[in-house]
C-alpha cells in the first residue's frame, strides 16, 4: 500500500489567459512520498498545485489522486505562502473551519490536538492579528493537518518567514508528517536547501511554460529533524548541482531579469 501510486499526472498542460503555463507534465508520487518542486519565479509552480488540488482543470492530460480526478475536500489540504487565516475567526475557529465533516465534540477535540502539536494550545482563543507571522503560519499548518489529509500541498509556505522561524518550521513539518502514516506531500519552494532537507525527490521545473527538466532522488537518512542532512556527505554536491541547473535556466530565459543573451 505504501508503495502504491497516490498522485499521478500524465501529459498535463494548462493555459492561462492565452499563455501556456504548464507544458505536458508527467509525474507520479507514491503514498507517503515527499516531492519538492523547485523552479524559477513565475514558472507555474502555484498553478501546478492548483491543478493537483482540483481548483483548476487542465487543458490537456489527466490527473488522478487515489485513482480519481481531484476534487477539493478534506482528503487534500493546501498551505499557502500568505497564511490565509480568516481574520474574523479565532485561532480555534480557523482550524475548525477545515473540519465541517466532523461532529461538534470530535471537531473540538481534533482542534485542541493539532493546536497542541504545533505548540499553540495557549493561543486557541487569540485573533490572528495578535500572532506573529511564524505563529500564523503554524495555525495554517494546523488547519491543513487537522483533517488528516492524505495529500498535503504546500506552496512556498515558509518563504515569508525569517530564517530562524523557517528552520524551525521545516523541522516541525518533518516531525509532523514524517511518521509511518504521514501524507503524501508536494512542496513548492524557491530554496535549494529547503528542497534538499525535505524531499524524497526533487522535481526541477523549466521557466514558463513549466516542464520537468530533472528528477533528482534525495536519499539522506530519515528522520531528518534528528540527522540534519546539511551535514551529510553529498549534500554540498547536490546543492551545487541544483544551483547550476537553476542558474543556467534563468540566464538563458529571455523572459528573465537575469537573461544574458545566450552567452552562457
Amino acid at each position, binding site marked *: 500500500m505504501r508503495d502504491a501510486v497516490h498522485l499521478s499526472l500524465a501529459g498535463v498542460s494548462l493555459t492561462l489567459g492565452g499563455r501556456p503555463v504548464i507544458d505536458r507534465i508527467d509525474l507520479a508520487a507514491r503514498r507517503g512520498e515527499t516531492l519538492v518542486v523547485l523552479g524559477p519565479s513565475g514558472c507555474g509552480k502555484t498553478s501546478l498545485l492548483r491543478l493537483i488540488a482540483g481548483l483548476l482543470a487542465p487543458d490537456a492530460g489527466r490527473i488522478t489522486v487515489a485513482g480519481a480526478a481531484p476534487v477539493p475536500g*478534506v482528503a487534500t489540504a493546501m498551505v499557502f505562502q500568505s*497564511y490565509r487565516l480568516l481574520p474574523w475567526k479565532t485561532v480555534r475557529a480557523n482550524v475548525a473551519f477545515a473540519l465541517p465533516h466532523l461532529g461538534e465534540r470530535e471537531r473540538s477535540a481534533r482542534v485542541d490536538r493539532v493546536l497542541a502539536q504545533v505548540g499553540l494550545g495557549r493561543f486557541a482563543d487569540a485573533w490572528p492579528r495578535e500572532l506573529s507571522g511564524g505563529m500564523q503560519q503554524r495555525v495554517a499548518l494546523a488547519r491543513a493537518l487537522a483533517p488528516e489529509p492524505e495529500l498535503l500541498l504546500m506552496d512556498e509556505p515558509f518563504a515569508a518567514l525569517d530564517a530562524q522561524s523557517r528552520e524551525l518550521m521545516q523541522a516541525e513539518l518533518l516531525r509532523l508528517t514524517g511518521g509511518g502514516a504521514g501524507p503524501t506531500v508536494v512542496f513548492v519552494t524557491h530554496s535549494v536547501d529547503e528542497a534538499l532537507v525535505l524531499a524524497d525527490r526533487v522535481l526541477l521545473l523549466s521557466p514558463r511554460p513549466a516542464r520537468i527538466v530533472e528528477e533528482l532522488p534525495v536519499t539522506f537518512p530519515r528522520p531528518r529533524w534528528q540527522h540534519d542532512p546539511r551535514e551529510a556527505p553529498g549534500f554540498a554536491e547536490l546543492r551545487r548541482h541544483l544551483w547550476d541547473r537553476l542558474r543556467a535556466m534563468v540566464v538563458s530565459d529571455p523572459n528573465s531579469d537575469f537573461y544574458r543573451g545566450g552567452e552562457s
Partner: protein
Amino acid sequence: MAEDARAVGPRQRASTGAAPLPVAALRLGFLALVLLVWWLAARAAPAGLFASPAAVARALARLLAEGRIWPALGQSLTVYLAGTGAAVVTGIALGALMGMIRPVGQMLDIYVHGLAATPRVAFIPLIIVLLGLGFEAKILIVFLGAVMPIVLNAYAGVRAADPDLVEMARATGAARGRILAHVVLPGALPYLVAGVRIGATIGLINTVVAELYTAVSGLGGLLALYGSRFQMAEYLAVVVVLAAIGVAMTEGLRLAERRMLRWRGSD
C-alpha cells in the same frame, strides 16, 4: 497584515476605558451650545413662529403625559421598522446574489444604480394607486428608500471579498453557501453596516414622507397637524422625538458594529 513578532497573549488588549468620558462630555457641551443658539433664535423670532427649548420641553412632557404621542409613535415605528427590516433582509440577499453570481450582477447593477438615482417620491402616486393609502403603501415607500444603499453596499462588499481567502475556503471543499457565510459576508461586514446605516436614515425620512403623502398618521401626521395650527412647541417636540429615533438607531448600529468587528481590534 502585521508581521511584528510581538509575543502578545490571547485576549490581551490595551484598555479603552479612558476614552468614552471625554467624548460624552464633548457631546453634552455641544448640545448645550445648540440649545443656547436655539434659545437666542427663539427670543429673536416674532412670537408664535418659533418656540424656545423650554417651551418645547414642556410641550414634549405634555404630549407624553397626555399619551397623545404614543399611538403616533407606535404607528411610525411599525412602518419604519417593518420597511427598514424588509430592506435589510432583501438588500443584503440581493446584493450578495449580484456579487456572488457575476452575470446576475452585470444584468442588474445598471438598473439598481438608475433606481437609486430616481427620487423615490416620484413613485408615491403609483404606490397609492396600487396599494392605497394604508400601512402597506407606507411600508413600501420606506422599503424603497432604504433598500437601495443596502443593495449597493452589499454588492460592493461581496465583490471586494479577498480572492485568496475564497480560494483557501474552496480548497477545504467548502461550497458556495459555506464560503458566503464564513468568508464573504464577514469580510463585507463593514460595507453592510455602512449600507444599513444609510438605509436606516433614509428609511426614517421616508417614514415621515409616507405619513404626509398617504393617509396622514403617525409622527408625520402630528407634524402636519401642529404645523398647520402653528403650535410650534408641539411641532418641535415631535421633531425632537424623530431625532431621538435617529440617534437611537445609529447608536445601536454602532454598538452592533463594534461587537461584530472586535476581531479588528481598536485601531
